[in-house]
């Protein structure tokens, strides 16, 4: 029997408490846990640190199978653990595409074998992400991977009829369709947010309306067929308004925002540095402020990383030729602390909700996103919120280093991560 005693941690940012882990489970939470119950326990002094439920990322790209030069399930889950995550949902745009039970089971098993973080595969909505024919959604759900979230992420399910059918079909087993909202015709040749900066730089524009029009359509479809829809990486003030309206109307919609859309703006594209090239693109200051507000008031339900690793050569080139995407697992909590906690918009308990409870609920990740109390699985993250330091990608566990934060000072650091009672990160280092 293994025992770990975390002493004096601010549970969800509240009063300091002691938390006792026995094997895979939290067995006691309280002040001054008696010597007898904690006897023989390994003690972690957590004075002043914040204890959160293990973070859950509903939107990760692990690249395996197919692009192991960017990331693998092993390197990606090590990055996830470093960032305080105990579960990640792996997007389906791999090679081959995760559109069959075979591929999703393979990814799921790799996660279990490596043991750094639970990997919950997301299944493709359509065969080959081609938007034409529904993938075998039921078979993926019934596989060992137990897929509940379906997405063609990277591409939009733009055919209204296919989207309607997918929304209807997954009702049979309580699944959810996660939409990458991007009207394809309006974004042909798009390189960055369409607006003042794109006009000046002469880069192809990705207009806000290309995102908003799809979200508007999809919430109406979800209402019509009585299903639920999840909107990936909201990026505009207008999208927030549509989701707010849909929720007020009782439509079953949830939405996510990425850390980078909470902090960075399209002004950075003036550097033509492809590290800032991402889809959806970085938007304006006004959008950033609207997204922060919406995450604070619950219109946006969760933070998801859209961790998108790319090898150096895919970014060390001219803007137009560069791949889209940024890594995010290892910096997500720091960016959320900087933009939401240090600004007073969210408490740490709210952070636990947006980054663990709510994503686990949306993705039905059983065993994750649970309260920190006796009897619950010991999936936990300990955060040193007083830490300040510059981001150094050389120390990343992710195989790729395409972070937009290199050299930036960000607050907060994960000191410990526990996956079912086993430490995956100890004193800021992978175990």
């Amino acid at each position, binding site marked *: 029997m293994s025992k770990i005693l975390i002493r004096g941690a601010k549970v969800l940012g509240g009063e300091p408490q002691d938390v006792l882990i026995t094997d895979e489970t939290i067995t006691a939470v309280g002040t001054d846990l008696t010597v007898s119950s904690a006897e023989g326990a390994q003690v972690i002094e957590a004075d002043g640190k914040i204890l959160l439920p293990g973070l859950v990322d509903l939107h990760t790209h692990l690249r395996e199978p197919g692009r192991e030069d960017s990331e693998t399930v092993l390197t990606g889950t090590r990055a996830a653990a470093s960032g305080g995550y105990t579960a990640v949902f792996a997007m389906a745009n791999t090679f081959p595409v995760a559109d069959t039970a075979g591929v999703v089971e393979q990814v799921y098993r790799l996660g279990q074998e490596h043991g750094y973080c639970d990997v919950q595969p997301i299944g493709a909505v359509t065969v080959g992400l081609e938007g034409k024919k529904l993938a075998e959604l039921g078979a993926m759900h019934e596989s060992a991977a137990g897929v509940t979230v379906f997405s063609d992420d990277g591409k939009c399910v733009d055919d209204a009829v296919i989207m309607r059918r997918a929304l209807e079909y997954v009702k049979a087993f309580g699944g959810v369709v996660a939409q990458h909202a991007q009207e394809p015709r309006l974004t042909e040749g798009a*390189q960055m947010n369409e607006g*003042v900066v794109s*006009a000046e730089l002469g880069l192809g524009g990705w207009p806000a309306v290309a995102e908003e029009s799809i979200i508007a359509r999809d919430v109406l479809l979800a209402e019509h067929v009585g299903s639920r829809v999840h909107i990936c990486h909201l990026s505009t003030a207008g999208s927030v308004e549509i989701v707010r309206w849909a929720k007020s109307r009782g439509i079953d919609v949830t939405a996510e925002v990425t850390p980078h859309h909470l902090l960075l703006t399209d002004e950075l594209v003036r550097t033509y540095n492809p590290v800032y090239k991402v889809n959806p693109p970085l938007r304006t200051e006004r959008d950033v402020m609207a997204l922060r507000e919406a995450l604070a008031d619950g219109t946006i339900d969760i933070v998801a990383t859209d961790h998108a690793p790319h090898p150096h050569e895919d970014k060390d*080139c001219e*803007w*137009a*030729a560069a791949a889209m995407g940024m890594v995010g697992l290892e910096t997500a909590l720091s960016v959320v602390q900087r933009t939401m906690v240090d600004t007073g918009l969210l408490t740490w308990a709210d952070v636990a909700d947006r980054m663990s409870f709510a994503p686990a609920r949306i993705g039905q990740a059983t065993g994750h996103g649970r309260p920190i109390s006796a009897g619950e699985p010991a999936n936990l993250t300990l955060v040193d919120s007083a830490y300040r330091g510059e981001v150094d990608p050389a120390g990343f566990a992710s195989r790729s280093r395409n972070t937009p934060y290199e050299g930036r000072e960000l607050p907060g650091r994960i000191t410990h991560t526990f996956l079912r009672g086993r430490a995956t990160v100890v004193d800021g280092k992978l175990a």
Partner: protein
Amino acid sequence: MKRHLISAADLTRDDAVLILDTAEEMARVADRPIKKLPTLRGRTVCNLFFEDSTRTRISFEAAEKRLSADVINFAAKGSSVSKGESLKDTAQTLEAMGVDAVVIRHSASGAPYRLATSGWIDAPVINAGDGTHQHPTQALLDAFTMRRRLIGPDAGLGQDLGGRRITIVGDVLHSRVARSNVDLLHTLGAEVTLVAPPTLVPVGVETWPCEVSYDLDSVLPKSDAVMMLRVQRERMNAAFFPTEREYSRRYGLDGDRMARMPEHALVMHPGPMVRGMEITAEVADSGRCTAVEQVANGVSIRMAVLYLLLGGNEPAVSSPRTDRTEEK
């Protein structure tokens, strides 16, 4: 002046006037029996063209040769940029060969900026047109042409284009020439009006230092120069405007429209002109049209830019001073 010439917006008024004045000196070389200066002897300039443009390349090459530079032409035609490594690899090759300046043309906006700022290469970079972003030497030669025509070659020395009203007509959305000209002409004190159908004006144009109009006829009588932009045929099928005929009727420059311009006003075109749609033969062949002068002025401007970025200390044109002394 900055080390590189990437964007017309990088130039201050004084930089721009210095380039125009230097180009006047360079223009005089063209009138000599031997059109060559020793200024860049022993220096190597590479013309790095990832996109076809015979006109621009020949213009730069002529400028480089008149300054006695050694010229390397690198045409990466057909080499795919989709993998993206070609620019960096080529830059490092040129660096290893010790080139003293790189003139780059690229279909991707921002490629020259990347080349100049990524540490791949140390030499000065001159943008010869990147995507739909900038083409600064084109804007400089346009300004040079305007100053010569509206003020005069000698009277213009030291002058900017303060108070002149310039109209730019056509596909602003896809035009690096329009972007460069708006920046430079504004810096030189001119008032710029862009005229185009709303589909060919970029979202975000409201922050540019210029006016925007959809009505050519109302702008013409107030113009000192009208610059016609090329409309690519492929725009026709992309619903930017209904038909070629309708475009021509609303935004083309024909004899009737030219008659509405003030007597002194110029008609400009960056070339190559497609006669018919954006400009009629009557206008293109009239004495007001500066298209051919623009080509000649391009060489003088590029000589001036190369000299100022690479030369530096000695006077650009030493012998004309000797000529003048001899005249005394």
